[in-house]
């Protein structure tokens, strides 16, 4: 008797597929974002491969040159090649962004899991704590942290991680609560599974899967924030080839040498946009998988 159903199912599925078509393999935006990300990763791992020059090598004779075949992105006040510096700065920006996001996710996971799993009292406490953190703008939290522990790349990274943690904690808590009350968790209870087994088998995997997307989206944001801190002189210090610091150094000459701040700024924007495009793409695919 199941034949009938299976036949009906087969007859229907191609039609259904046509109506709710899964997303194309690659959108244009995703393809471009992917290419740019490949470039970034290459630049981060082997900077000499994409820009053979020395990012710190000064050449006063060719200072303030506008973009040209010799210097694609122009040169700065000491004659250093902007393209080389931007490429060599990729590594530290990506590292800061990734590590900061991992710190944020890690802290968020701990706080969110505590709130979601340990009952109403812990939930209440953690939530009020998060609300206090939410009351401060993220950047202000980061500044506060740097004020206490002093400026530097490491502190800036941790600061950004801390500042993003409350948001992640909220999302993880919500996800946990919804998964915990879902019908399949109840079904596992009816099968006689212990709370521990259900946690490991059903609740955690279904909570953590969306975090992957969240993290990809978060990296872009973290890079922007870290650059902002460097721009304010609280992260990487000049003459280090770091995007935010370069942006800051170009500020003085923005009227005469726009390329000094434009290209680092462009890379910050493109990196954030690429991370977002990829994150969204992964999210869509997971939903249709």
């Amino acid at each position, binding site marked *: *008797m199941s034949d009938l159903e299976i036949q009906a199912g087969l007859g229907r599925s191609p039609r259904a597929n046509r109506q709710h078509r899964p997303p194309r393999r690659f959108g244009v935006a995703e393809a471009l974002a992917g290419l740019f990300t490949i470039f970034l990763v290459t630049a981060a791992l082997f900077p000499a491969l994409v820009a053979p020059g020395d990012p710190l090598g000064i050449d006063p004779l060719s200072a303030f040159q506008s973009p040209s075949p010799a210097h694609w992105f122009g040169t700065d006040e000491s004659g250093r090649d902007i393209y080389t510096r931007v490429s060599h700065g990729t590594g530290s920006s990506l590292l800061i962004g990734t590590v900061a996001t991992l710190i944020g996710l890690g802290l968020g996971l701990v706080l969110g899991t505590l709130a979601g799993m340990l009952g109403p009292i812990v939930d209440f406490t953690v939530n009020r704590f998060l609300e206090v953190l939410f009351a401060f703008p993220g950047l202000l939290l980061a500044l506060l942290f740097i004020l206490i522990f002093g400026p530097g790349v490491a502190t800036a990274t941790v600061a950004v991680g801390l500042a993003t943690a409350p948001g992640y904690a909220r999302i993880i808590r919500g996800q946990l609560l919804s998964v915990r009350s879902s*019908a399949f968790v109840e079904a596992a209870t*009816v*099968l006689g599974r212990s709370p521990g087994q259900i946690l490991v088998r059903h609740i955690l995997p279904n909570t953590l899967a969306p975090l992957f997307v969240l993290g990809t989206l978060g990296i872009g944001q973290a890079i922007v924030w870290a650059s902002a801190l460097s721009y304010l002189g609280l992260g990487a210090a000049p003459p280090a080839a770091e995007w935010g610091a370069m942006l800051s150094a170009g500020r003085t000459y923005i009227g005469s040498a726009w390329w000094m701040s434009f290209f680092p700024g462009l890379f910050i924007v493109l990196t954030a946009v690429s991370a977002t495009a990829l994150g969204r793409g992964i999210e869509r695919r997971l939903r249709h998988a």
Partner: protein
Amino acid sequence: MSDETGTGAPAVRVRNLVVGFGPGGDADPVLNGISFEVAPGECLAIVGESGSGKSVTARSLLGLAGENARVSADELSLAGSDVRGLTEQHWRRRRGRDVGLVLQDALVSLDPLRPVGREIADSLRLHTDLGAAARHARVLELLDRVGLPDAATEVRKRAGELSGGQRQRALIAAAIALDPPLLIADEPTTALDVTVQAQILELLASLKRAGTGILLISHDLAVVGRIADRIAVLHEGRIVEQGPAHEMLTRPDHPVTRQMLAAIPVDKPRGLRLSVRAAAPVSPSRSSPALTSPGLASPGPAGRDAPRHTVLEAVGLVKRFTRPGGAEQLAVDGVSFRLARGTTLGIVGESGSGKTTTARLALALTRPDAGEVRLLGQAFSAASAKQRRLLRPGLGAVYQDALSSFDPRLSVEQVLRDAVGGGAGRTGRGGASVSTADRRRVLQLLDAVGLSQGLLGRRPRSLSGGQRQRVSIARALASEPQILICDEPVSSLDVTVQAQVLDLLDELQRDRGLSLLFISHDLGVIQHVSDQVAVMRGGRIVEAGDAARVFAAPEHPYTQDLLGAVPRIGF
């Protein structure tokens, strides 16, 4: 508008309608040349299983088949005028005026943030030049006409504040606001309780008598039999049979029609097969070990004789919920029942009667505020969490929404292996540690519920509703339980698929001597499956007893009302 219909033009006439989707749509159309017409004051019912093309038919008549739809027809006219190739702009002028639409789920069809009065007034505002006061008067008149008596207060309510039946009435009021000659009702009563369903059907019938042509779309022949003048049976994009309702219901020609009629559970004795595909008569070919043990044989209704061993017992269950406002609500108020071994206890009631809470109490998913559930003679609800876990394998559960009861990450095989393996000593995704014995058990379970091995790798999401429910039943059987608790197991299925699932449950009950607690809002289903029946209302059991007795001679007025509202075939 209504004078146009007076000229004798049919409200809708369709000849050779073909609808396909996407580039390959021409080769494999969803609708493959269907023809029908509806005269003013007539009701044509289009009946078919899900996927047969019913809703596409309705949408094509409204120019809403979709952007990538390719619609062609030799004739497609509303109120006598051709609507082929109309632009979206022209369609907008016709919708509501020439044809009104009523959808299944009024909750999503109405804007949750706007008062229903405004929703209804919308089409008046768009299509007529009535002033605000005149519109308001018309809205009140419409609400009165669809049977919302206290119209003046109802207009100000939002969709969420109305009951399901009231919402459906409001939706019908919006659809008939401009007196269209044709009203399309797409599964208008599927989500409603039987008594409300009967009222809505009566409302549609009164509109019909007033001269509106009605195109009623449904999967359930018993429902349309109440008001349809003619019935067309749609199967895989073709109308396989069309004729006067009386003839179609009493002397169906086409096998599809016969199958749909056979699937209706109302008034079919217990044990009678509902699905016609499996030609095998009552006794299944499979050897049934359970039947060899004495006391479990003789599954016929007459053979289920008196005092049997009680496997599941509820004593004076009470469950209160606190509403957001702080007010207390008694969801379950002193419910007691006994489920005897090898029999089915049917619990029937309308939405809000406490059926599902009773099921959750019986499964010990929630603690009763008073009373106790005893499983196989042992304390269940009152036992410690650990003790309950040890007892759970004796109890299986089948849910209405099978899909959400499966972990979305898992395939059918993983779901069943989880259930078979007991979950102990399993790490992570359970890859290598799975024994071949588990694998064999999974295959046996699949076989028992009539699914092929080819489905093992699929995600439940990609299965049909009937297949999902079979997987759900297979999972419930994994621990070899003596009792199955089924909470609305067939409510979201088509009648024909419902018949297959009911037959499967019946077959499993015979083979394995299962005891079933079967919960449903559908009296027809309950009548077909139950030995004992309990009727719930407002958290209480108002009538209980032998199913044959309750259905033949209901004592409580509420039971009588319910029974009177059940759609049945019969003239």
